[in-house]
């Protein structure tokens, strides 16, 4: 792994990382899971700037930092900050970098994390910028697939649901293009994968298929990645009503699938996965959420230079 340097680096977009670098993060996450290091971040402060609501991401970053002996400051709603008074994001970041060693940011505007990284001299980690990127979620997804299936190379994955606005789908598809994955994009036409992502995958010579019928793809899949139809991304509530229950994944889906199929979901789920599926070993989404801790521990300790 010579030549891979993470110290001082920003984690903004999955596009910024090679396949080798992603595998390196996963190897550190595995190490973190196997051998917890309760004092690794002693004396370090993580600033969490969450301008948009979040449960898993914000709490798992906080838990990851605290489990390594670090501390956290921050806010969970943009309304409580001086941006409400008209302060620019640039100025907010410049101020917060003076109080902390690393910044974790979630913002509704796309490109907000990249702008923050330009403003700050300390590492900035993107915890979601609008419909654009959520790179640590993608690392968690990769870690889960690798842990559950034993490999990333050559897997077949089906993405189901809102592929138009789903940033986790976009990022994971780009990340898996490093590992010769085959992909099925399963969605209603109105929520299909944006053309510019398909163009990018084509350029990377990824084999993919588009369909609106989950049953057609199911028998081929090692992974079914389900996403929520995100109400907050629809300008028109009637449009949302039209699509919100378009797919529902329950235990019956396992009949037409490989026995080893795993079902992933970045959560929260609304109605797209029947809770009856939870008791089946194929339902890997809560294990996926739990993997947020070691992966975010790996990312934090890498960018702060605490592990090499």
């Amino acid at each position, binding site marked *: 792994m010579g030549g891979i340097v993470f110290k001082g680096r920003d984690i903004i977009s999955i596009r910024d990382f090679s396949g080798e670098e992603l595998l390196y993060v996963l190897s550190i996450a595995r190490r973190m899971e196997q051998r917890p290091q309760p004092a690794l971040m002693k004396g370090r402060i993580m600033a969490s700037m969450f301008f948009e609501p979040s449960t898993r991401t914000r709490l798992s970053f906080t838990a990851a930092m605290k489990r390594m002996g670090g501390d956290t400051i921050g806010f969970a709603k943009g309304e409580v900050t001086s941006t409400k008074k008209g302060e*620019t*994001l*640039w100025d907010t970041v410049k101020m917060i970098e003076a109080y902390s060693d690393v910044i974790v940011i979630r913002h509704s505007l*796309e*490109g907000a994390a990249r702008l923050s990284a330009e403003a700050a001299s300390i590492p900035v980690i993107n915890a979601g910028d609008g419909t654009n*990127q959520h790179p640590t979620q993608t690392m968690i997804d990769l870690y889960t697939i690798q842990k559950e299936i034993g490999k990333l190379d050559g897997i077949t994955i089906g993405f189901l649901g809102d592929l138009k606005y789903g940033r986790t789908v976009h990022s994971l598809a780009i990340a898996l293009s490093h590992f010769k994955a085959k992909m099925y994009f399963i969605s209603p036409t109105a929520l299909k994968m944006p053309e*510019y992502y398909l163009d990018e995958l084509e350029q990377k010579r990824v084999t993919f298929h588009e369909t609106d019928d989950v049953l057609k793809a199911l028998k081929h899949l090692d992974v079914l990645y389900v996403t929520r139809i995100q109400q907050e991304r629809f300008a028109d509530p009637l449009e949302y009503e039209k699509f919100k229950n378009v797919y529902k994944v329950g235990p019956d889906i396992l009949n037409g699938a490989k026995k080893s199929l795993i079902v992933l979901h970045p959560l929260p789920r609304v109605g797209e996965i029947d809770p009856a599926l939870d008791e089946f070993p194929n339902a890997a989404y809560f294990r996926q959420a739990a993997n947020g801790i070691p992966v975010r521990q790996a990312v934090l300790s890498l960018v702060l230079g605490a592990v090499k």
Partner: protein
Amino acid sequence: MTTKQKNHKKPAKKASPRNWQAPTKPSSGVQNKEIRITAIKDGTVIDHVPAAKVFDVVEILNLKSHKDVVSIATNLDSKKIGKKGILKVAGRELTKKEVDEISVVAPQATINIIKDFKVKEKSKVEVPQQLTAVFRCSNPKCITNLQPIATSFSIIAKNPVKALCFYCERVMGAEEIQLR
């Protein structure tokens, strides 16, 4: 900046083949459709600009405040690009930055540098790898549209132009590219 401002004297009113010519009378029943606009002594002629983008070029070059002669013709028939425009700007050479910006809105444009009424140099524009500040991102939720920062794009395809926003990572097609 290589912009030149010259207060050269225009040629006298006497007839000159390079000066304005009234449309010729129909001959043999065929209308002469060629349209000529004032020739310039020294300056730059930008040709093969898509008609819809002529005023983008005016804006890129900030011609509203140009003190010397500017002639603009648009909606001319062009075999190459359908309807085209042509801009003649006296007393002015373009910077590389300006040529790069024109290349994005008019990838087939030609730039003619005129000296003493003659074409001294003719070149085609070339779309650059990177562009900053002049264009707006077409994504309304891009941070560059809501915070006071300069835009930045990588050109990922040249024919037709496709630009990747450095901030929101959205890809803009040629038809979406607009000036800020």
